[in-house]
């Protein structure tokens, strides 16, 4: 009888669990489908690159270069000017990382780097970054994918070429007092976007 009772209890729990699980899956159909980390990184890059290109074209290049009504400067708060596209990109990265902290299953980070950085802290630092930045500069149109381990955590790391798409990108980097390279041309690879996604070892 005891045996029977426990079997019934287990059966009931199992039925309820399956019911809940079934309802959950039915509620958000397709959430069990998986996306590769490479596809995730490619998609993330597509969004971040598009957003920044829109900002560069429709805000910065239009108002600064074409209309000439405002400047775009690094200390935009003090100067009451526009934030630079690279800053807009970085602020987005910082906000995304902060918001991701509150989401259990969302974990990634991204940075904008260059072999010719205006701010030395944005030079490639890890071996993967160094190899990736060099690869995308020398192989136009190709991305670089690898894995690396930092502080005991394994990451899928993707590096995408960052190209000077607008005249303001090129002229700003060529004229900046701290730039180590002054002969960028429109369409040149000026740096790279590094996306990191933690993966299981």
């Amino acid at each position, binding site marked *: 009888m005891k045996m029977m009772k426990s079997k019934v209890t287990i059966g009931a729990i199992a039925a309820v669990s399956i019911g809940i699980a079934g309802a959950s899956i039915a509620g958000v159909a397709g959430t069990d489908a998986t996306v590769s980390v490479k596809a995730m990184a490619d998609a993330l890059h597509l969004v971040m690159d598009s957003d920044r290109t829109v900002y560069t074209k429709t805000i910065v290049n239009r108002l*600064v*270069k074409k209309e000439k009504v405002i*400047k*775009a400067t690094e200390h935009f708060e003090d100067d009451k000017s526009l934030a630079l596209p690279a800053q807009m990109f970085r602020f987005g990265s910082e906000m995304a990382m902060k918001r991701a902290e509150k989401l259990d299953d969302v974990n990634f*980070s991204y940075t904008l780097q260059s072999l010719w950085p205006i701010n030395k802290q944005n030079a490639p630092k890890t071996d993967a970054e160094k190899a990736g930045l060099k690869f995308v500069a020398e192989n136009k149109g190709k991305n670089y994918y690898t894995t690396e381990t*930092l502080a005991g955590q394994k990451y899928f790391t993707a590096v995408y070429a960052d190209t000077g798409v607008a005249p303001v990108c090129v002229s*700003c980097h060529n*004229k900046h007092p701290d730039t180590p390279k002054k002969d960028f041309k429109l369409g040149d690879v000026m740096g790279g976007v590094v996306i990191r996604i933690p993966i299981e070892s």
Partner: protein
Amino acid sequence: MAVKNNRIYWIVWLLLSSLLGAWLAHAMLNENADKQIFMPGELSPGHHQLADACGACHIDAFGGGEVLQRACVDCHGEDRVKPFDSHPAKKFKDPRNADLLASIDALQCIGCHEEHKPEITAKDGLTQPLDLCFHCHQEIAEDRPSHQGMGFDTCKDSGCHNYHNNRALYTDFLIKHLDEDPLLDQGVLPSKEFASLLEEIIEYPREEYPVVRLDEDDIDASERRAFDQDISTEWLETAHARSGVNCSACHMQARDKAQEPSWNDHPDHTVCENCHSVEVSRFFKGKHGMRLQQGLSPMTPDQAVLPMKQEARHTSLTCTSCHGSHRFDVKKAAVEACLECHDDKHSLAYEASPHYRLWQQELLAKAETGTGVSCASCHMPRVSRDVSEWMSRIVVDHNQSANLSPNSKMIRSSCLHCHGLEYSLSALADQSLIENNFSGAPAGQQVQSMQLAKKESIRRQEEASDDEDADMFGF
């Protein structure tokens, strides 16, 4: 016999342990009890007032560093974000900087600001050696040849770098303010924005108290109360009377939403914050109000580390201790209220200073509004603050501790309204000038950072091309 003796020992041990446990529990749980027994070491000057409020920092009995970190951020978090902090935590959360954290745990405030360690606590509550910048910036001389030969224990020298707030010290800022006169033409302090932006202050009870001028006939205090004519006269002179803030707005407020409003002869800060929430929240962050924020009795001068006047030692610091009640005289709050308590050299020298002479000229209407320099002009400056996600306005920053440590944080909020940057940096580095309340010019050497900025400016001018592309980006 031996068994009997042992039993007595056990009973005595049990009794003493119980008494000790009860006494410790009483000390821990009773907010008025002395908690020194639990104090592992003296608190830093920034937190000494909270010695009775262990729970202010130890906000959870369980958990480790993350609990303390949460407490730090609860009070200091808003100043630890860009642009106010050049080393925000988010910079170190990037996995590519994981190696830097192995040297200095920059994600935890206690990585550099340990508490209860007076033997290693230096100025600004720093408990790391002065050369801590070395860990991450050891190659700085390669990136910036101008820094060759400089010791890492000099990074924090006055006028050079602050780990957190570098806003008056970054290169472009120094260059922008090169060659300024010690005294700027038409120096004037900003005006605060409150009445002019009332429509945008969401919490303002405009429906209950419409913004209209009130006179004596409008007074809505209960007739049962003996009414003091002086109070009426004082109130009529205030912005409160001019803006529809009747007696009941302060005296007839419910303690909480569940209660009916009832008359209160002595309203406290909880009433003020109905309209002045930014001011009260900032008051809570400073040394005047931090005890109140923790639910402790108000700060009194006898608890201060700085010298205070004997006769004021038991004055409770609340809104009305400086502003008075009914008259709410901001001019009195800006000088007289401070000097009623503060008794240090700098405070005592104020009334013989050029700043005070300017203040008197303004009070006598012999000079324009905003040209006088009161204690509050520097220590409670009028600053633009984000009062919501989307709005900012100029408020009197009632956290008088915010721009003091290090004092170069005062440059943007106070000094630069009237003085050039180099003069300001020099003056703030001159201890004797601070003591005589800036009566005279700084006698110190030239500020090294300004000399470097001059050289950098010349380099930029030599290398700059004269085209509009450079101008677009402010180069």
